[in-house]
């Protein structure tokens, strides 16, 4: 079976030149998600005051409030995800694309998958996951 639970990672957005984004290093406990050449999201245990981008005009901001996150885990997590998206997941890492018709960010780790969606769609996607994956959700 698969398990679904809400999680609360911190999210920091960095908007800077592609070169500056290339230089962004993940703080311990966070994952670098390159959502666009000039845009990075740091997801996990991260404090915005610890993030520095050496470029005038760059935007570095805690945007945790803008995201709702869920974690899918368990033996049937991949099966559950196949009912939500046509994305092909890597063994590990970051991908983005449509999940239940919503643009989402996905962080894949061994045995679990984190799905981040814009906060105003959190209730909608949770309902969709629980209905569409009912057969395989614990």
């Amino acid at each position: 079976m698969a398990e679904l639970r809400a999680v609360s990672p911190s999210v920091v957005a960095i908007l800077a030149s592609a070169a500056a984004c290339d230089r962004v290093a993940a703080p311990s406990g966070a994952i670098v998600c390159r959502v666009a050449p000039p845009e990075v999201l740091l997801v996990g245990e991260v404090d915005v005051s610890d993030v520095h981008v050496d470029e005038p005009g760059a935007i570095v901001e805690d945007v945790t409030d803008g995201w709702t996150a869920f974690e899918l885990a368990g033996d049937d997590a991949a099966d559950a995800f196949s009912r939500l998206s046509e994305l092909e997941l890597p063994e590990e890492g970051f991908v983005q694309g449509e999940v239940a018709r919503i643009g989402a960010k996905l962080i894949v780790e061994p045995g679990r998958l984190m799905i981040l969606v814009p906060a105003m769609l959190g209730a909608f996607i949770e309902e969709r996951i629980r209905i569409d994956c009912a057969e395989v959700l614990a």
Partner: protein
Amino acid sequence: MGSLRFEGREVAFTDGDTIASALFRAGVRTFSRSMKYHRRRALYCGTGDCPNCLLTVDGTPAVHACQAPCADGMEVRRPHGWPSTERDLLHVTDSLHRLMPVGFYYKTFIRPRFAWETAEKVIRRATGLGALPPTTAAERSVVRHVRTDVLVVGAGAAGLEAARDAAAAGERVIVCDESPIGAAIAPGAALDRVRALEAEVRAMPEVTVLDGHTALGIYEGLEVPLVADRELVRVHPKRVVVAAGAAEIHPVFPGNDLPGVWLGRGAARMAGVHGVRPGDVAVVVAGTEEGLAHLETLQASGVRIAAVAVPTSLAGRVPEGSGEVVVDGAVYEARGGKTLSSVVLRRGTEGKRFDCDLLVLSLGLAPRDGLARMALPGEAVELVGDAAGPDATPPNGHDGTVCLCEDVSLHDLRQAWDEGYRNAEILKRYTTTTMGPCQGAMCGRALSCFARDRGGTAPAETTPALFAAAARTTSRPPARPVTLESLAAAVHELIDKRTSLHDVHLAAGARVDRSGGWIRPFTYGDWREEYRAVRERVSVMDVGTLGKFTIGGADAATLVDRMFPCRTDDLAPGRTRYVLSLDEAGYVMDDGLLCAVADGTFYLTSTSGGAVRTDARLRDLADRMSLDVHVLDRTAQWGAINVAGPHARDLLERLTGDAVDAGSVLYPGFADVTVAGVPCRAVRTGFVGELAFELHHPRSRGPELWEALIREGAAWDLLPHGLDALELLRLEKGHVYLGQDTMPDDTPAKLGMSWAVSMDKEWFLGKRALERLTELPATRKLVGLEFDGAPADVADVRGAPLLVGGQMVGRVTSAEPSIALDRSIGLGWVRASDAGFPSALDVAGHGGARAHVVATPFYDPSGERLRG
């Protein structure tokens, strides 16, 4: 064992029965009526290829009765005929061929135009495959995406062998079939072979068997959607093996669609599997060894054989007791009325008539290659088994029905050819041959033969091997009839956005509904009281739905200057400006407020429904102009609450230690303040026409900020307001709702908003178009309206045409009875005539109501109240 209900009567069925076999056993012979001429249609192919047995089952139209298993209590009915399928008066059209020639629907229903509405209804009643159930809610289907190395379509012997071999080579395999494995195969060696293979592949861990899953098509990618009961499986394979087998050839001769004419597999299955004789006296035309097997099956079931037509190569193998053997004979014609009564077999120029009630045709196989032909050249799709076999289509006879679905005869094809349609593809479009439910499974090859024989299309040798049947028309999905609910799998729900205050609104008893993609409160009980709270005291509204953006980077000022038509270079930090957003054609796409922030960035709001588009347009323009700009969409991150009313400032002062006086939070302007401990950007707005502060705040802090405002606002009898009250509040100020009051081609001038455009700017998006448009005369504009004699509920007037001298010159877009002004007001667009724009208009359909064009705003024209 059990029974189904067929048009009001009980029909018993036995284990293993299909709907068709149960009905046939019960004496039903006419299963449908042909689309155009309402000719009787009976069981024919027995393999789910032809359209003859498409019935409505439990409200679902177009179910192949010969494939669908029976279930106790199911409701079955035939879709055609008036007053009934059995006694169909519309059969009279069969004697009116001359009035309904090929393509008559293109030629006949042109004039008079007014007659079309009636003709359309008549045609719809007379044709079609049944009606969609108007009251039945769609069943919710789920979708699954599955990746595999190999998808095998068809679980017959060839498909199972291909699956076994691929799995043995280490590939992940999915094998699918529209029926349970082996269900369509008569008992015997072939079924035994399939059962053995089935056991073998089911034991292989690399193989997933999806029986009861129908492949709808092959899409670029590769992707093959499989539809099943309440499930759509979207398979993404690396390669596809099509093992769909073959249908028996549908020969064309006069009378080939009479009840009693069967293809061999259908007749043999009825006799051998279901134990029901398809007729008493038969003529069998066996062009293959399979045909001889069918002959034996029929004999074993007790059918008397009157004659057998076989080629010379099979003449010596015709079993005893098969009546007269006509070597190298062919069917010349079948005769009959309600059912088949005789068949004329011909050899050379010699013909002989045989009385019979059953004609069984087994002339060879037509590979089911439709799926494979959907693949693009180079895609990894291969045919195996009978699906890859040779095409044995015989030449067409001298007449007969080519297309069973669309009622197209050989005569029709000849006539179309003579009219100049001289290619299989355009013959298809003109005559609709192959465009019915069977998608050419029966008629596709006969059409090709016709075109090829007439010399209209390329010969087989010139086409790639995969498309070996030359001159075939294009094969497209869906390969099988599919319900809309299956296609809508996983897209049943509208995507609803919710603000952080959603639960708070529900707890307060708000009536919520969709607006601009969000679920929003329309009222908390009495919208008029909510209105009065805004006008007389203080109120709050959840406006977290607004689009919210930070625009930063070295070229941020350049981007906003080029994005918006008003001046932005003089916007001092702490000040805001109303901005229109235009497209390249100068049409108004959106509006909002632009705030200049002290750190050199800009904060922008957009309409609730326009946020996604605004984000895309900002980024697009920045990219096109190679600007060094960063756009941070804060719509999800920040909520917003509008605090509005004469006591709005008093309320804020109770909750903040920061200065919120008129000199500290300017109008139009903003300031960053802390309200009830929540960091807020307080933006002065004027949409409702009263002193107002939009408090933009971190989304997670929304509920505590809202509760604090409600609690402290009680001192002024604060009531929250929803969209119902907002509708009147903004209308009294003459503010437009984009989308409701505007048209897609509205320019600022048409909306009376030229004041929001600075044509003296060097360039902004849409400027060139506006320059050209100003040279044209004004033909339409949005105006303020006051109504005389309007109904009490003037909101009903919304959408009503506006007339001058009986001619429509405009339309009401907004209308409300104004509480502040004690009269009915509205907005609407009007067209100019030679005499200019009208000033008085009739409101169509509202009993003499009149509208007068007046200036806006209706309420507080000087704006004193909102400046506070």
